[in-house]
């Protein structure tokens, strides 16, 4: 098994893309579905960026250029596998079946948001879909994946825990801790490092002096592989292999999915401050959407008509989801006080009453002011 992975590691990061045949057993149908989701992901990113610029939403952190790594890996997992996100993987959740409107509810932080407007946009979650809660602190989710995998192993469940994180996150405490433990206990964990070449403005050359992030595996007794993250078929194959290894008791795999962030870090970022147009253009040519589309068109599994259809569909769906989410009310004041504990203790009940009183007073004085103006 390891041998076939090794060959992927050596696949050069260049065009032309590998033929679908190289992807082994991946069906063209699956790849076409992944492409459809990549297009959807990109459409959503572009739309949300506009909404943010218009001041209609507060923030968005997108996946432009990284759709192949994210959706290829997601497609290689089973629904039962734990999927532990970083903050850039909203498309993975949607791929698993999360309703688009619920995702928009989260972006708007409205009363139907699963997390009740408590977190920033894109910090979404779904227990039903085995998709953990997004956290902002970089890297903290990596040890959680180790624990989820540990539980699966101890309970004898046939599932793995796959965790996404960035190149910057490899410097975090949790990366180190997670690989140390997963290595020693041979836990069924898939460490998916989206190397998008930047931690906000800091390039990989200033993040780590190792030649590859995959090279870190050896220090933990963990198989480390570098995969062309813009080659979707390679991603699917590598993640499937890693998953099979994990379930066979062969332990965790660290997969460096080498890709590139084509957008800013988030809607708050201006990437022209730290990277050249030349670099950007060079990577844009390796866009995973372009590559997969080309491969599938050659194989007769994709067409302009299918693409137009996919785009029309997401456009309609998203318009509706946005207008519905935007129209919804804020979460109620009670949402501030619930879910701190399973049962609300006395001091939170008291503070909730305080907050209600403050709201009532504010409303009253607002009403009074309005009254003044009426006069």
């Amino acid at each position: 098994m390891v041998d076939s992975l090794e060959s992927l590691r050596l696949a050069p990061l260049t065009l032309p893309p590998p033929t679908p045949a190289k992807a082994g057993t991946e069906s063209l149908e699956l790849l076409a579905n992944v492409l459809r989701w990549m297009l959807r992901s990109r459409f959503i990113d572009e739309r949300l960026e506009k909404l943010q610029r218009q001041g209609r939403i507060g923030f968005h952190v997108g996946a432009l250029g990284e759709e192949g790594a994210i959706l290829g890996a997601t497609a290689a997992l089973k629904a039962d596998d734990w999927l532990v996100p970083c903050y850039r993987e909203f498309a993975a959740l949607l791929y698993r079946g999360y309703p688009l409107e619920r995702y928009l509810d989260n972006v708007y932080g409205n009363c139907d948001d699963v997390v009740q407007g408590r977190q920033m946009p894109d910090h979404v979650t779904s227990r039903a879909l085995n998709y953990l809660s997004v956290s902002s602190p970089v890297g903290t989710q990596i040890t959680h994946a180790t624990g989820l995998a540990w539980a699966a192993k101890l309970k004898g469940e046939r599932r793995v825990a796959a965790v996404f994180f960035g190149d910057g996150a490899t410097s975090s405490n949790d990366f180190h801790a997670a690989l140390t433990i997963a290595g020693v206990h041979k836990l069924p964990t898939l460490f998916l490092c989206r190397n998008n070449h930047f931690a906000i403005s800091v390039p990989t050359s200033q993040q780590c002096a190792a030649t590859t992030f995959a090279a870190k595996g050896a220090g933990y007794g963990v198989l480390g592989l570098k995969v062309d993250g813009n080659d979707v078929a390679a991603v699917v194959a590598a993640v499937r292999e890693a998953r099979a290894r994990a379930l066979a008791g062969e332990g965790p795999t660290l997969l460096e999915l080498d890709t590139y962030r084509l957008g800013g870090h988030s809607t708050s970022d201006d990437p022209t401050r730290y990277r050249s147009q030349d670099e950007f253009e060079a990577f844009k040519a390796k866009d995973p959407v372009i590559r997969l589309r080309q491969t599938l068109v050659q194989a007769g599994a994709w067409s302009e008509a299918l693409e137009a259809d996919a785009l029309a569909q997401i456009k309609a769906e998203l318009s509706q989801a946005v207008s519905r989410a935007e129209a919804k009310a804020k979460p109620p004041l009670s949402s501030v006080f619930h879910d701190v504990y399973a049962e609300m203790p006395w001091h939170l009940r008291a503070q909730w009453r305080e907050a209600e009183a403050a709201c009532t007073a504010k409303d009253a004085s607002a009403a009074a002011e309005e009254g003044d103006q009426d006069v």
Partner: protein
Amino acid sequence: MSEAVALRQPGGSGGAATAQRRGAEPTGERTLVQAINAALALALEADPNVVVLGEDVAQIGGVFRVTEGLKARFGQDRVIDTPLTETGIIGAAIGMAIAGMKPVAEIQFADFIYPAFDQIVNEAAKYRYRSGGDFHVPLVIRTPYGGGIKGGHYHSQSPEALFIHTPGLKVVVPATPADAHGLLLSAIDDPDPVLFFEPKRIYRAVKGPVPAGAERVPLSEARVARRGRAVTCVAWGAMLYEALAAAAAVADDGIDVEVIDLRTLWPVDITTLRQSVEKTGRLVVVQEAPRACGFAAELISLVCEHAFLHLEAPPQRVTGYDTPFPYTLEHDYLPLADRIAAALRGTARFA
């Protein structure tokens, strides 16, 4: 004096530790260490989802031998020696807890909890809230705590205030074997993350009866360890015995002190506290940790909010000083009975 005090039993109405004074058979008497060990064994036995993990907890049963024998009995899959990473112990335990297990993680000394601080305060504490209740973290973190064993800066700390300041956590400090047993079982039952601080100064110095069964001591209920009418003295952990000794000492001067053993620090039992202060009108809080921003300050503020008009004297703190914990002079640093007694006298006589 203080050494002797640590060996004494709590007095008062708690009942938990009265057996020794009545001369009960030694078989019924257990140390704090034995009580915790027994509770862990009960929990491991009752629920296959319970696991114990930490540095040195399995093969040698922990550096204080609190988990002794558990690996032999329950196997290395359920009593696990981990690599030396507190970040990893707590981070992985959170993952386990999310997956439906009930990890009981040990941090070898409370002083070494900080590498896991981010996981505790940013992750475990906020997981239920930030996932809208989709996920929660039923995690217990046990850790030896407090001074008095000549541990210097790094084997003596009492960091409870840091966790009380963090919404989403519960904080427990038992002082008697029975409470250690019953509170730990409640902590393991609890659906939310609980910090369980074990006062190591009295790990073996205190003995008392422990129920053979799995009776729970509910969280967030304080215990009146000694009834009195003149001053309320609040304490927890090892300092409870210092407070009781001080209460006994000032009783000779006719000062009738009520001693409250908080047991659960957060969420605190405000009712017991308020009722006591309404009765006595005077408050002394004992805390091992450094003074500034410690839990004593919170208790005083709560009393000001809930019972200000009943206060007949300024509420006082007897605490560790705002310095790192010293080695040679630790008995000058700790808020031992002498210092508590002086504060009780001052507070009682204030007019």
